[in-house]
């Protein structure tokens, strides 16, 4: 007998960096995550990572131009949440971002977004030339 395919919800949207649009997107993703049985801690992690990714895309990729869009897609299964965020910029080298936790950078006000994305999602990959990021959160085994 064929194995039953895992339930999967997938979405793809384009948002301008307007708070209401981002909140609406966050609410929809939170609903998907909750329905798939993820914990509150997982929801916190995913929300934070998506927030940072969209802000980075808007601020650095689209240079704060609210007429430009940030493309967001995600899929949710019982085992993992995959999110992709891309912008209209020329990309960047993620290895060029200084470590914000080193002593000399600790009191610099900016530069923590990517670090938080990496800390809260299991897998974060910037796709060359760096204007698209793919983040994967894997549900911890019980």
């Amino acid at each position: 007998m064929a194995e039953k395919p895992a339930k999967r919800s997938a979405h793809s949207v384009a948002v301008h960096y307007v708070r209401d649009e981002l909140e609406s997107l966050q609410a929809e993703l939170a609903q998907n995550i909750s329905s798939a049985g993820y914990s509150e801690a997982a929801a916190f992690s995913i929300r934070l990572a998506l927030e940072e990714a969209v802000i980075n895309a808007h601020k650095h990729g689209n240079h704060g131009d609210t007429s430009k869009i940030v493309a967001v897609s995600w899929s949710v299964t019982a085992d993992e949440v995959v999110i992709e965020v891309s912008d209209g910029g020329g990309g960047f080298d993620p290895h060029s971002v200084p470590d914000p936790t080193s002593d000399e950078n600790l009191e610099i006000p900016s530069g923590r977004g990517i670090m938080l994305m990496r800390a809260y999602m299991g897998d974060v990959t910037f796709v060359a030339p760096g204007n698209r990021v793919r983040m994967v959160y894997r549900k911890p085994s019980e």
Partner: protein
Amino acid sequence: MAKETSRLRITGTDGLVRVEFVDRDILDEANIRQIGAEILGRIEAETKPRVVISFHNVEHLSSAALGTLITVNSAVKKKAGELRLSDIRPSTLEVFKITKLDRIFHICDTAEAAMRSLA
């Protein structure tokens, strides 16, 4: 008497200032800029500011909010003052620990404990 703004409640006298957030989420860039300007304005008005920022209501904050707190901390230190953060939920405290900002901020369990430490 509390000074009610759209984003903050600021109370206190004689250089001992208590700040609370109205919003649960400190995420929006424009709001964060406004919050920073309000707190920095109050610090500027004090000779030797002693400031407690309570996160009692706060559920989420972004890296931009952390950046503003760093700027506030620098402004307080520049005037030989002291800053305390308090009432931080475990999930948010984890953000401070991951970024190692718990090394530069003095974090107290409650605003009352923070106020006592500055009295």
